[in-house]
């Protein structure tokens, strides 16, 4: 475990997590292996003005400013006094949100290209493999990191796959170019344990009748056996130990102590209820149910238990346990309220190298479907599904995920509302460092992607310079982020005008 630095802006919802993490502050704890080597390069102070800001804390500010300095957010509001020596960006017409966070990714462990030689996400030789860590298989040259960054993703939890009942540890990464995963590893973030319900483990192991689990009975027996053993292991450790190291048991003991979060792949409502009981039996907490296509059936219980649900906007039917997926799942989880008045914790996740590039659109679909079904969802609520809620669920909610003074300057400047098919990230900052700039395209950063498309053939097309069509040229900002060329196409957000102008001679 990395040491955790609580910030002044600690939120109440994270109190439990902070307590849990404090456990690893014990002086006698050995130095954690594979430490992060990430440090943010120095970056100039930036003042973004006249933006529509979604803070991730339920606020929407119009014509507002945000100041970043030394990699942190310093001020957010209608009137922010500019310090000397600051880059001022006129963001009129643009929207500013926290950097997007994907609570469920396999980038790096199932990278592009997708061949056996790169398939490193499932150690399917035993249904219980808590000793494996996804980070040891993360290939930082996966071109998917880069395309996800262009989609506004600044942090992500890379998990092992769901072939096993207990698949191993997942790690939180900052989405920055690096030659090692240590250079991406999020300082201060806890590890997560991947647990999987349902069809995948029983298909992988029991389908031929050769090995447990063959059934959902076997699944549950498998989790219980593992945690029963971990309890004994932990008891012995706390009594002085003396046993040989057991890497798998170290991970499960970390879960029992509350140091390691639990990310539980689980589709069906009945199985989620079972898992909540398993967690109670052994005294650990499930942080988040992932995929959870039936979360809407138990939205109240999830709110009551304070368990998040990380969901797709609309995936369904690819497995029997995904047959009951509905578009309103996210909205229904979000709308549930606990007896104490806590709102449901809904997350839109990707699990996919394409979906991660447009989490904003996936959230938009879920928001629109919810509104259509009568749920009141404001833009400033829906943005939490891809920022502050996943930040909380993967244990970095005190560090990033919202635009508040003291938090990391992880942000996305969009060409308009992010809730649109036409939305594009114009700029992406991570710890105040400009990591993606749509109008100053860099050469590819992944070594693998370098030189894949021969330059002479690339010229057959046109460079990727589609200007921000959502912003009329007349209203374009004065700073250098504005495209120099005028929009080549009519504004896509006004199809009527666009189509009409094309048809009138």
């Amino acid at each position, binding site marked *: 475990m990395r040491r955790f630095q609580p910030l002044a802006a600690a939120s109440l919802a994270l109190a439990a997590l902070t307590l849990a993490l404090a456990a690893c502050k014990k002086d006698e704890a050995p130095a954690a292996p594979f430490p992060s080597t990430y440090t943010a390069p120095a970056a100039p102070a930036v003042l973004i003005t006249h933006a529509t800001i979604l803070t991730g804390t339920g606020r929407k500010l119009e014509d507002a400013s945000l100041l970043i300095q030394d990699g942190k957010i310093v001020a957010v509001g209608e009137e922010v006094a500019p310090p000397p020596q600051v880059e001022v960006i006129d963001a009129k017409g643009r929207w500013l949100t926290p950097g997007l966070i994907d609570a469920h990714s396999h980038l790096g462990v199932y990278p592009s290209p997708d061949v056996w030689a790169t398939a490193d996400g499932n150690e399917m030789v035993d249904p219980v493999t808590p000793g494996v860590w996804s980070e040891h298989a993360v290939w930082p040259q996966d071109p998917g990191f880069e395309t996800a960054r262009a989609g506004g993703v600044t942090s992500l939890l890379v998990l092992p796959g769901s072939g096993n009942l207990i698949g191993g540890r997942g790690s939180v990464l900052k989405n920055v170019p690096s030659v090692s995963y240590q250079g991406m590893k999020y300082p201060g973030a806890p590890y997560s344990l991947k647990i999987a319900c349902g069809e995948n483990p029983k298909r992988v192991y029991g389908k031929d009748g050769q090995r447990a689990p063959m059934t959902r009975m076997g699944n549950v027996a498998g989790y219980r056996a593992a945690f029963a053993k971990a309890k004994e292991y932990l008891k012995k450790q706390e009594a002085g130990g003396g046993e040989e190291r057991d890497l798998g048991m170290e991970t499960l003991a970390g879960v029992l102590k509350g140091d390691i979060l639990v990310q539980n792949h689980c589709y069906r409502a009945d199985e989620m209820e079972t898992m909540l009981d398993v967690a109670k039996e052994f005294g650990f907490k499930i942080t988040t149910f992932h995929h959870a296509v039936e979360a*809407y059936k138990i939205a109240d219980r999830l709110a009551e238990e304070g368990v998040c649900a990380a969901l797709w906007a609309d995936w369904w*039917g690819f497995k029997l346990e995904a047959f009951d997926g*509905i578009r309103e799942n996210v909205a229904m989880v979000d709308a549930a309220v606990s007896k104490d008045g806590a709102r449901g914790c809904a997350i839109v996740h990707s699990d996919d190298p394409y979906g991660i*590039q447009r989490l904003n659109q996936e959230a938009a679909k879920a928001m629109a479907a919810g509104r259509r079904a009568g749920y009141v969802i404001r833009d400033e609520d829906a943005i939490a599904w891809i920022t502050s809620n996943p930040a909380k669920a993967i244990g970095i909610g005190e560090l990033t995920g919202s635009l508040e003074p003291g938090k990391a300057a992880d942000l996305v400047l969009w060409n308009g509302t992010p809730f649109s*098919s036409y939305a594009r990230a114009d700029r992406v900052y991570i710890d105040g460092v400009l990591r993606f700039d749509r109008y100053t395209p860099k050469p590819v950063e992944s070594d693998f992607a370098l030189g*894949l498309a021969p330059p002479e053939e690339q010229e*057959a097309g046109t460079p990727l310079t589609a200007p921000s*069509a959502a912003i009329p040229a007349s209203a374009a900002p004065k700073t250098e982020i504005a495209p120099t060329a005028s929009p080549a196409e009519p504004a896509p957000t006004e*199809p009527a005008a666009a189509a009409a102008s094309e048809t009138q001679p």
Partner: protein
Amino acid sequence: MNRHPWLRRARVLAPLALALALPAQAGLLAITNAKLYTVSGGALENATLLIRNDLIEAVGVGLPVPEGAKVIDAAGASVTPGLFDAYTHIGLEEISGIDETRDDAGGNPRYSAALDVLDGLNPRSVLIPVNRIEGITQAMSAPTTGEGGPLLAGRGAVINLGQLGPQNFIARAHAAQFVPFGEAAMAQLHGGRPTVLLALREAFQEVRNGGHSGVQRDSLLGALDIEALRPVLSGEQPLVVDVQRAADIRALLKFADDYGIKLVIHGGAEAHLVARELAEKQVPVILDPTYNLPIHFEALAARADAAAILHRAGVLLAFSAASDMGSHNSRNIRQLAGNAVAYGLPWSAALAAVTLNPAKVYGLDSTVGSLEAGKQANFVIWDGDPLEVTSFPKQVYAAGVAIPMSSRQTQLRDRYGKR
């Protein structure tokens, strides 16, 4: 199994027959005050769409509404043709992970050209209402061209999702023959690309020779396969090939020339590198415009603005999702179209890629795909920009009939959600 399937079918069909009688009584319908995206003739503001029975009678601004017509005031809403997905397995695939519900795969012989999806298509598929209430009124339902499957995978059909029953469910039988190429086909033949192309040439040479592969060996194709391939060889039925790599597309262009085959590219991650040749030879591309990663070695040059490049070169584009969710979420093709616009494709070209262009690919452009007099009255009234992820249909019409806007998913929502 049911010993009296006819009895069972009769029970199922009785209520459907009543429902199907309704279109005949629908008579005249006028959608007024609409933003009509005709696709074939641009966009018309404050326009009227006039429907008689199952066909569009007139489209225009200031059209007189005939007496007795049912009038629906669109209040300025956008109206488009029903959407057309150029590549799905709808009606052939219910739950991807449950083999018992799959009729899209063609086993593992080398050639399965005679396979006909009509023999497996299920008009009662749960996927149909889920997708039609979001505006999909036509889809190609194709046999799978998966890894290890047959090289000639069989014949697909265009289905009408809007039809509320088995009648008129098939818009066009035998609309195309499907073939995998590149990595997927190599697995079937345990060889490289030259082996795959040779196997294709052998098959078509045999058809050309009238069913004789030559003196050296026995026939490679069954008699029914040869029969099924004749319309492909004559250029009447397109050959839709899953192919990504630019070099492979070039090889196929040559092959298609040699045999007079009407080629359609499906996949086409690197088609933008061959855009000029594709335009010259009038070969359409069925593309997922969001496919921008080098996820396969045959797609190393995939890029997000491929649709814009192909369109500028004059290539006919149709959109379909490359993901495994392509059938269940056919409804998301308009998100694909919107994303293509975000990467430089003109909005009207994006709409055409999910309406009229797929109709052209499968030879159905005289009956569907645009709002034109004489075409089938398949259209959608939208609550916003049709290519926006935040928009939904207010009402979908198929053959002039307002379809019920419910599905198994809306029923689940209503069971568990607020009313």
